[in-house]
C-alpha cells in the first residue's frame, strides 16, 4: 500500500481517536456534529452493508444479472457522502451505493439497473443531485468537471455563502486514474479552477489488477502534478472521510479551486458477482483489511462514547427489515414494456425511431397464440 507522507486518520482501526496535529485541526468538525449524525454514520454503513449482502444473494438466486459489492468501502462513502451539502452535485462511478442512500436514492433504482430493466434512468434532480452510474471507467470525471465549470459560469459558487454555494464531488477508483479522461478532467478542473472535489477510492484492485500496476507513486501525488491540492486519508475511517471531505468541498465551493482526496480502502468483496478474487488475491491481504473494517472500528468508538446495545440491535433489525423489503420488491418486478426499447433515444421526435417502433408493433401483432 502506497501511503503519502501523511495519511490522515482520526479514528484508528482499533476504534480510538488519534491525537495529532492533523487531527487537532479536523476534530472540531466532528465535535460540531449532533449526536444524531454520529449515529447516522453507523446506521448508514451497517444498513448499506446488509442490503449489499442481500443483493448478492439475489444475484446468486437468478434475480439480478449482476451485483457490484461495496463491502469494505462504507467508511469512505458514508463519511464523504455526509460531507456534501444538499445543493451539491454528486457524480458516482458505479459502486457508491452508500452515497446513493444518503442522497435519498432508493436502492431499488440500482436493483433495476442490475436486473436489466433500465440503464439507470433516475432523474438526478429528483434524487438528491446523485447522477447516474457510469460504467465506462473514468468518463464521469469529465462530466463532473463540465458540470462544475457550469456552476462557475452560473456564478453559483464562490459567493461566500456555504449554504448556497454549490460544489461537485466526483467518485472514481484507482483503476480509473490510468484512464486518459481522468487526466483530462484534472487538466480542465485546474485550468478553470472548478468548484469540485475529486474523491478517489483506492480500493487497491481493478478487477484482478493491483494498484501497483496503475501507479508507482501514491495516487494522491498526481493531484499536485496538475496543480490541485490533494490529501490522502485512511478511507476506512468514516470520521476522517467526513472531516477532510467537508473541508475540501467547502474550500471548493468558496472559490478556492478543485481539491483531490485519496481514500485508502479495500474491496473486501469481488469486483462484481461475475468475478472470483480467490484467483488472484491472497487470504493474508484480505485478513489485513478485514481487521481494519470501517464498521467494526466505528462501533467500538460509539460504544466507547456510551452508545448502548439497543441502538446496534435496532440498526441490525432495520437492516433485516429493509433487506426483506428489497427482496420482496425485487421478486415483484415484472418485465419492461417493449416500447421501452424506443423510449427517449432522442429528445425531439425522430422519424426512424417512430418507423421502427411501429414496425415492431405490427410484427408482434402478426403472431397468433403461443409459439
Amino acid at each position, binding site marked *: 500500500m502506497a501511503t503519502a507522507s501523511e495519511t490522515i486518520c482520526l479514528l484508528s482501526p482499533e476504534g480510538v481517536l488519534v491525537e495529532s496535529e492533523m487531527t487537532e485541526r479536523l476534530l472540531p468538525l466532528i465535535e460540531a456534529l449532533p449526536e444524531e449524525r454520529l449515529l447516522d454514520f453507523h446506521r448508514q454503513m451497517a444498513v448499506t452493508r446488509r442490503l449489499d449482502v442481500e443483493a448478492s444473494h439475489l444475484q446468486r438466486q437468478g434475480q439480478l444479472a449482476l451485483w457490484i459489492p461495496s463491502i469494505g468501502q462504507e467508511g469512505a462513502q458514508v463519511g464523504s457522502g455526509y460531507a456534501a451539502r444538499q445543493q451539491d452535485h454528486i457524480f458516482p462511478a458505479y459502486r457508491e451505493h452508500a452515497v446513493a442512500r444518503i442522497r435519498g436514492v432508493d436502492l431499488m433504482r440500482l436493483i433495476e439497473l442490475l436486473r436489466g430493466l433500465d440503464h439507470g434512468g433516475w432523474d*438526478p434532480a429528483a434524487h438528491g443531485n446523485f447522477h447516474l452510474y457510469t460504467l465506462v471507467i473514468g*468518463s464521469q470525471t469529465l462530466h463532473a*468537471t463540465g*458540470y462544475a*465549470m457550469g456552476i462557475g*459560469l452560473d456564478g453559483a459558487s464562490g459567493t461566500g455563502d456555504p449554504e448556497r454555494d454549490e460544489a461537485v464531488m466526483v467518485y472514481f477508483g484507482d483503476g480509473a486514474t490510468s484512464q486518459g*479522461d481522468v487526466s483530462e478532467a484534472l487538466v*480542465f478542473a485546474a485550468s478553470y479552477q472548478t468548484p469540485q472535489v475529486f474523491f478517489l477510492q483506492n480500493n487497491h484492485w481493478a478487477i484482478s489488477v493491483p494498484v501497483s500496476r496503475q501507479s508507482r507513486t501514491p495516487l494522491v501525488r498526481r493531484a499536485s502534478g496538475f496543480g490541485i491540492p490533494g490529501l490522502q486519508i485512511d478511507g476506512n475511517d468514516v470520521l476522517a472521510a467526513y472531516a477532510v471531505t467537508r473541508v475540501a468541498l467547502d474550500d471548493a465551493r468558496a472559490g478556492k479551486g478543485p481539491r483531490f482526496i485519496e481514500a485508502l480502502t479495500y474491496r473486501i468483496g469481488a469486483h462484481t458477482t461475475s468475478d472470483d478474487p480467490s484467483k488472484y488475491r491472497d487470504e493474508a491481504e484480505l485478513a489485513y483489511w478485514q481487521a481494519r473494517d470501517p464498521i467494526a472500528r466505528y462501533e467500538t468508538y460509539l460504544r466507547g462514547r456510551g452508545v448502548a446495545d439497543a441502538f446496534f440491535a435496532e440498526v441490525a433489525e432495520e437492516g433485516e427489515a429493509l433487506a426483506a423489503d428489497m427482496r420482496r420488491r425485487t421478486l415483484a418486478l415484472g418485465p419492461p414494456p417493449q416500447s421501452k426499447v424506443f423510449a427517449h433515444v*432522442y429528445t425531439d421526435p425522430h422519424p426512424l425511431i417512430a418507423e421502427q417502433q411501429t414496425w415492431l408493433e405490427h410484427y408482434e401483432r402478426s403472431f397468433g397464440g403461443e409459439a
Partner: protein
Amino acid sequence: MTETWTMTKALNEGLRRSMRDDERVLLMGEDIGRLGGVFRVTEGLQAEFGEQRVMDTPLAESGIVGSAIGLAMRGWRPVCEIQFDGFVYPAFDQITSQLAKQTYRHAGSQSFPVVIRIPYGGHIGAVEHHQESPETYFAHTPGLRVISPATPHDAYWMIQEAIAGNDPVIFLEPKSRYWPRGEVDLAASGIGVHASRIVRRGTDVTLIGHGAMVATLLAAAEIAEQEGTSAEVVDLRSLSPIDYGPLIESVRRTGRAVVAQEAPQHVSVGSEIAATIAERAFYSLQAPVLRVSGFDTPFPPAKLEGVYLPDADRVLEAVDRALAY
C-alpha cells in the same frame, strides 16, 4: 434580404445569432477564442461574448466533449469545435458511449443539446488526418443527429437549428467549401434541418450526395447535359436521419440512382442509401443503385488526393454504367 457570404462567414454569423438569441449558448474548442479558430469561423466572437462564453480549451478532445456533457447537464448549450476531422477520434468514446446515450440513460429526464462542429473532407491538399470523412461512424450511432451543409445559406441556418434543437448534433463542415461564396437568405431557412433537397431537376438519373460532393455532382450534371443526359441532383443535407422522401420520389421518376461520397465505400452512408432505395423503389429501378466513393484505403498523401477523391469523371462513369442497364 440576402447576403453573399463565404461558408465561414455564414457560420460565423449563424453562431453569433445563436449566441445573441440564447445566453446559455457557449462555444468551446482549441484556438477558437483569441485566434478565432484555425479557419476563422469563430472570429470576433470572444471579443463580443467574452472568455466565459467563448472558451479556449486545453488540448484534449475527449475533455472538450466530456466537459460539454457536464455543462449540458447544468443547463448550458455547448457548441464544441473539433479542430479537424482526423482529431475527433480521441473524443469518440465520449461522443458514442456517453453523449449519444445520455438521453436514453436518463429516460428523458434531461436533454443534451450539445453540438459538435467538425471541419471535414478533402480537396485542401493537407497532411494526414486533416482530410477525413468520418460521418459513417456517427450516422451509425443511435442518439446522434448528423448534418452537413453544402452551401453558405444552409450553413447559416443549419448551425442555428442544430444549436436550437434538444439533441446531440454532429455538425460536419465541408472545409473545401469554406471559401466559395454563395447567397444567404437571411429571412428564412426555407426547409427543415433534416430535409433533403432536389437542387437540380432532371429525368434520366438521380445523383445523390452531401457536403462538398454536391458541387461535384452539379458539375457532373452540367457535363452530362451536354452529352444529352438529364441528371437530377439531390443534396442529402442530413445523414441521420436521412430524408428519403425526395430521393425516392426522384428515383421513381428517373429509375436510376448514383450515390457519391468522399468517404471510403465499404460500410458507408452511401451503402445504406443504396440499400434503402433498392428496398423502397424496387419496382421503379431500371438499374441497380451505384455508389461512387473514396477507395478503401487510408486517405492518401495530398499529391494523390485527385486520384482518390471522386470527381465529375468518376461520377459520370457511374452514370454511364447506370444508363447501360
